């Protein structure tokens, strides 16, 4: 391959050489090169294969709009697919691969698809693959058989399986003015706002700020534009109140002027710097925004327009001026407007020859003729390119006279040798962010482009974004925008003089040349002009139908080059104007955004862990920790070799036999304080709390407004106006919000403060026949006997020097006490209790034993208070006070909530003495092969050491009436079937003699 690097020029650092590989072959380039420019410089013309037809493709653009040259970048085993080569900065050791080809880029078997041509036109898959109506392939089978192969043929790059080890971060920023785009307009806007004292962020998606100034070849203020831009950037750097963000794509414009920008911090580095993120996601809350995002050039649609070597004119100019790379030695130009002439001039200055200019316009201005003369190029006005030649690189073009009226070419065809074709179909302002912000673009007939409308949010536009395609105009608009967002403040700059190539950006209204052959509109997705017409023929004529039916604009480039040409073809087919056909509403993101950068610090750390004060003790003492919501709780403290069941049975036996202790710090705890606290609790709970004496606790039940059970727990009256409410672990947050809502919105007259004190207290529940003895041996400052500490009583004392609060209540059914102390002392008190319990064989127990003991007692938890059950379903009807209204009291007696066939809580005993599983169903008659007739399901189950049986709690239709009846457990998922007896949910010590002592 021949080098296409120019001898001089460009903004690359020719003194340094970078080595990288593409498809396993080694290449070199220079700092400042993109992968695309470096490969082009090395003579590479073939970059990728298209999606459907696997056609060979080169580079069409020099930027974020690239549809063709997609590669996969590898860092070790970590793969990043679908990166435009135009957006990859090369670095030493860069490894890139082409995609969507097998076995190789040059010889791709998928290219056979081209033979199928018209058979696989737009939407073909809707019309076939339905398969036979009868036989083994009926239903969906035939389609799924075909789909298997279609899926493998489709898709672009391959994702890897190696976990990505890079860091991704989020950053919140606030500014008065966010300027998007750092071309001349953006630079001037930023400068003006900065001068006015505003906090400014200037974001630029390219590595170097300056935008078109870096490659326009113009002179601004008597110096080369790039130097002018560099000077402007240096000036901006002087301001403390300005942040410059190169390599940063602003991709989302959300409500409240919140914009999101992806900064590629590390991609251009050989190695990511230690602890530095690869990508940083900026969430920017901007007072106002200046959109100076420029414009994107459009290709023309003609047969063979996808041949490698066909390139946008502006891209060719950029490769020449910015990278010192020539897209060809002998190039042709095909255009509908003047700007391509300037590109040809730039190429001439860089050393390429333009042999031919094909212009669809019947006539062109004297200025353009002069340029053609200067180029020594043949100028064919009123002509069009109707074919291109070459395999994996362009070798020539065919031109024919063009009839503007019909959009077709006819007459004498000529073949002309060229190894590059520069095309220009005019320019589309990059209005994506404005569209995201909710504005509907407006069509401009002169520019043949959608322009941004009046802002609906706090943004203003400047430069080519506004359709102002000259640099002088852009600079003036940038200054004006900067002043506008500064509230008219700031000084007005004297705009510098701009020396540029003459030319009118207004194109002829021609985007397609109708001739035989595949003319591509959406290059990546292989959507042709004929596909658009087929969509029209089949009635898919609205913009959205066109997109969805043909997949036009749905590729990784999101239609940046194809949108307007596609609309133009549809408009012509309909005989309507482009704005009558409509436009697409752009949505985030403007360009692809790494998932890692959106997950940011949560990548690898989805949710924080909540740890109890005794967490480390549990872990050190062999607890298997169990993730319960965000909390970590001991499941069992297993001995070596024990199964889970063996461990919890041992823990349960030890507790019921002598004493056990469990960490209950995760229970929600809410301080309810104030003169109206008791009144408030009366309204919140179904039962009465105003009658609760100080120093006592009471079990309470809350309903939702709709009368369904919500949460339960004990609430302790610590003082006349001071309550400590406990909630279930899972519902702590919801209960808190529930209370706050009522206090703020419904009963603002109540003087009550609610504060989460869950984390203030460490809680240990110690229970069992010897629990009191253990406490007696360790608690000082208060007796804990039955008189001082009756059931539901509360005392204050000390354990080993730490103040504690002890409430005698029981979840396990044993004589039990909840010992609360300041969280920082939790482990100290826990250890003191363990020490004191040693003579009694005190065991720590986990959630499994806790669950076992509560099942034996028939106590309910979230498994039964599941948001569908009522108090009565759970046999808690006795708690519904008739003396007062409470939340839910008005709604709880509706017909649906008192129906006799509701699911009610019962106990279940396995009669075959085999384990039961949570989630098994209960049936009256067993049908293993064809399970049906479920009357309810198990909510919790265990082996009950106290009963010596496998038992469960269940919610069964009309449950209570079934006590004493036989039924069957039916668990087809786990193939567990067998007889059970339906019993009361109070399995163990129903009179509560053990806990009352």
């Amino acid at each position, binding site marked *: 391959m021949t080098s296409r690097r120019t001898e001089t020029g460009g903004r690359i650092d020719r003194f340094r050489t970078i080595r990288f590989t593409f498809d396993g072959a080694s290449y070199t380039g220079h700092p400042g090169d993109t992968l695309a420019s470096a490969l082009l410089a090395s003579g590479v013309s073939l970059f990728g294969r298209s999606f459907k037809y696997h056609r060979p493709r080169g580079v069409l653009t020099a930027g974020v709009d690239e549809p063709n040259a997609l590669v996969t970048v590898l860092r070790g085993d970590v793969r990043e697919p679908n990166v435009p080569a135009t957006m990859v900065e090369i670095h030493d050791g860069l490894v890139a691969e082409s995609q969507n080809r097998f076995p190789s880029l040059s010889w791709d078997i998928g290219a056979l698809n081209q033979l199928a041509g018209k058979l696989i036109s737009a939407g073909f*898959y809707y019309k076939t693959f339905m398969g036979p109506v009868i036989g083994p392939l009926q239903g969906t089978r035939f389609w799924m058989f075909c789909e298997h192969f279609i899926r493998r043929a489709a898709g672009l790059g391959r994702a890897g399986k190696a976990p990505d080890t890079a860091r991704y971060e989020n950053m919140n920023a606030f500014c008065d003015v966010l300027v998007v785009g750092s071309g001349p307009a953006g630079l001037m806007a930023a400068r003006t706002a900065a001068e006015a004292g505003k906090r400014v962020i200037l974001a630029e998606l390219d590595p170097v700020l300056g935008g078109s100034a870096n490659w326009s070849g113009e002179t601004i203020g008597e110096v080369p534009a790039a130097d002018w831009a560099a000077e402007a950037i240096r000036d901006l750097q002087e301001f403390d109140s300005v942040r410059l963000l190169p390599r940063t794509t602003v991709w989302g414009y959300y409500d409240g002027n919140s914009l999101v920008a992806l900064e590629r911090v590390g991609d251009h580095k050989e190695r990511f710097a230690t602890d530095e993120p690869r990508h940083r996601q900026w969430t920017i809350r901007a007072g106002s925004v200046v959109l100076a995002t420029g414009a994107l050039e459009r290709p023309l649609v003609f047969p063979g327009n996808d041949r490698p070597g066909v390139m946008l004119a502006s891209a060719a100019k950029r490769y020449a001026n910015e990278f010192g790379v020539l897209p060809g030695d002998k190039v042709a130009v095909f255009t509908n407007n003047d700007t391509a002439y300037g590109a040809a001039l730039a190429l001439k200055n860089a050393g390429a020859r333009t042999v031919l200019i094909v212009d669809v316009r019947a006539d062109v201005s004297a200025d353009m003729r002069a340029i053609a003369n200067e180029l020594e190029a043949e100028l064919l006005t009123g002509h069009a390119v109707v074919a291109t030649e070459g395999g994996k690189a362009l070798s020539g073009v065919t031109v024919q006279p063009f009839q503007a009226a019909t959009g077709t070419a006819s007459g004498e065809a000529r073949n002309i040798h060229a190894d590059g074709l520069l095309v220009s179909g005019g320019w589309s302002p990059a209005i994506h962010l404005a569209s995201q912000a909710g504005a509907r673009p407006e069509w401009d007939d002169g520019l043949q482009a959608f322009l941004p409308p009046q802002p609906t949010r706090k943004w203003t536009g400047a430069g080519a974004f506004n359709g102002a395609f000259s640099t002088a105009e852009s600079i003036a608009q940038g200054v004006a925008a900067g002043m506008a967002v500064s509230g008219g403040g700031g000084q007005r700059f004297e705009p510098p003089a701009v020396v540029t190539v003459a030319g009118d950006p207004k194109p002829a209204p021609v985007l397609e040349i109708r001739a035989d052959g595949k003319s591509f509109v959406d290059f990546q997705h292989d959507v042709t002009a004929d596909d658009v017409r087929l969509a029209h023929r089949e009635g898919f004529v609205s913009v959205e139908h066109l997109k969805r039916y043909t997949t036009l604009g749905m590729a*990784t480039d999101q239609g940046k080059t194809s949108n307007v040409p596609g609309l133009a073809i549809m408009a012509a087919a309909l005989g309507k104007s482009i704005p009558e056909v409509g436009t697409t509403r752009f949505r985030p993101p403007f360009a692809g955004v790494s998932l890692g950068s959106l*997950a940011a610090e949560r990548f690898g750390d989805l949710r924080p862990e909540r740890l109890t004060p005794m967490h480390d003790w549990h872990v050190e003492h062999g607890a298997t920790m169990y993730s319960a919501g965000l909390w970590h709780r001991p499941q069992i403290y297993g001995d070596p070799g024990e199964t889970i069941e063996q461990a919890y049975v041992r823990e349960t036996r030890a507790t019921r036999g002598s004493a056990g202790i469990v960490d209950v710090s995760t229970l929600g705890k809410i301080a309810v304080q104030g003169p109206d606290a008791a009144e408030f609790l009366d309204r919140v709970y179904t039962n009465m709390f105003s009658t609760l004496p100080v120093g006592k606790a009471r079990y309470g039940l809350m309903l939702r407004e709709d009368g*369904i059970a919500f949460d339960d727990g004990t609430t302790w009256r610590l003082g006349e106006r001071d309550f400590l409410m406990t909630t279930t672990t899972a519902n702590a947050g919801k209960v808190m919000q529930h209370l706050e809502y009522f206090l703020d919105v419904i009963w603002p007259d109540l003087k009550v403060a609610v504060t989460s004190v869950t984390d203030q207290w460490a809680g240990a529940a110690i229970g069992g026949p010897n629990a009191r003895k253990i406490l007696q041996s360790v608690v000082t400052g208060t007796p804990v006997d039955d008189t001082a500490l009756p059931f539901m009583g509360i005392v204050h004392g000390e354990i080993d020097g730490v103040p504690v609060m002890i409430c005698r209540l029981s979840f396990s059914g044993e004589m039990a006490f909840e010992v609360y102390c300041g969280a920082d002392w939790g482990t100290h008190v826990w250890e003191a209790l363990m020490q004191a319990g040693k003579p009694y064989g005190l065991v720590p127990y986990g959630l499994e034993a806790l669950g076992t003991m509560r099942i034996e007692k028939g106590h309910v938890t979230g498994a039964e208070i599941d948001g569908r059950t009522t108090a009565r379903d759970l046999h808690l009807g006795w708690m519904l006070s008739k003396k007062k209204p409470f939340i839910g009291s008005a709604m709880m007696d509706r017909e649906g909530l008192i129906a006799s066939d509701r699911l009610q809580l019962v106990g279940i005993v396995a009669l075959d003495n085999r384990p039961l599983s949570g989630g098994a169903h209960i049936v009256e008659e067993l049908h293993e092969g064809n399970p049906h007739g479920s009357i309810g399901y198990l909510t919790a189950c265990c082996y009950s050491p106290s009963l010596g049986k496998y038992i469960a709690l269940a919610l069964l239709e009309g449950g209570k009436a079934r006590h004493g009846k036989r039924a069957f457990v039916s668990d087809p998922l786990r193939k567990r079937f067998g007889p059970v007896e339906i019993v009361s949910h109070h399995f163990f010590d129903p009179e509560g003699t053990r806990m009352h002592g």
Partner: protein
Amino acid sequence: MAEYSALALLKNALTGNKDWKPAWRKPEPKAAYDVIVIGGGGHGLSTAYYLAKEHGVTNVAVLEKGYLGSGNVGRNTTAVRSNYLLPPNTRFYEHSMKLWENLSHDLNYNVMFSQRGVLNLAHSPAQLDDYARRGNSMRHQGVDAELLSVAEISRLIPVMDTSKATRFPVYGGLMQPRAGTARHDAVAWGYARGADRRGVDIVENCEVTGFLRDGDRITGVTTSRGEIRAKKVAVAVAGSTGRVMQLAGIDRLPIESHVLQAFVTESLKPVLDTVVTFGMGHFYVSQSDKGGLVYGGDIDGYNSYAQRGNLPIVQEVMAEMLALFPSLAGVRLLRSWGGVCDMSMDGSPIITTGPLPGMYLNCGWCYGGFKATPASGFCFAHTIARDEPHELNAAFTLDRFHRGILIDEKGQGATPRLH
């Protein structure tokens, strides 16, 4: 109109694809119909289709404000499943599943229903039991369901992190093998073509601006294209229910409209052959035939008709995605969009006669509308044609909220954003 087939494709390819005809006509609306269906989305179109096919009611117009399928039928994440806990839901969605299984043939339109399975991941033994309860509920209703072990899941989805080292390790999962995905737009287009072939008028760009009434009775509609009378007016405009019902003077319903965002990555070679949901949050993902990972999570959580969401949900969904697929951090989000969901007060839909005489209402689909498309139309057509609900939608009444006969899968009560 010509049948679609491989042969037809070949024939047309040979003639340059010049002979294909519009998939449905673009008729001018007539002055009167037997039935007007407001809403040219999936449910409206399927309703019209089944009115014609099952009940012989063909003098039907479907009125669509914008382009056909412009609402949620073209904005969802395409999952089709019937893995519900509560029998009224299980039965209804299973009927839908059965219709899905023959839909491409029925419509002579490939809706690409791909029964690749839906797998709900469980992240604790308790959650696995919870899923087992649902799976067993399905099995007792004759619906397919299986529990998968971690090893089985790991084999099925090698790209997923099933190690114990993660914040929320996978303990197993509930699989419905017959569930899967379908090509959402094709469903709308297939039903439209099917209804059109049976004589239904599908009128696009026809916005209903008011209702014609005779006393309480609804007798037709006023539209941007004139007055149209009808014996029966059916409303199937999920996402816009509040707006349309307000035109009939009903401004309070047990519904809030919320925006739900959906996302798709760039095209990848196949990495995910099934639909997966994450159990420690709200996240679901599948890979389209084109190769993009299609996924979503929670609704944004506030009333909206804007079809655009905000950033917090975007970030939450991506974080959940990477919790399952840590190797995909470098893969890029390509597109996002928003749809407007009718969030009902118990998370289940409404298909009913009324609430006014001459009117029929189909709404409240929450997240679940797409997979319901066939059964919703099937049941709604029955309800319209017979003036009484089909047994499958008998429970989906409007008055069930007031009566307390709720169908609350998630047990969240009247907090729509949590369903």
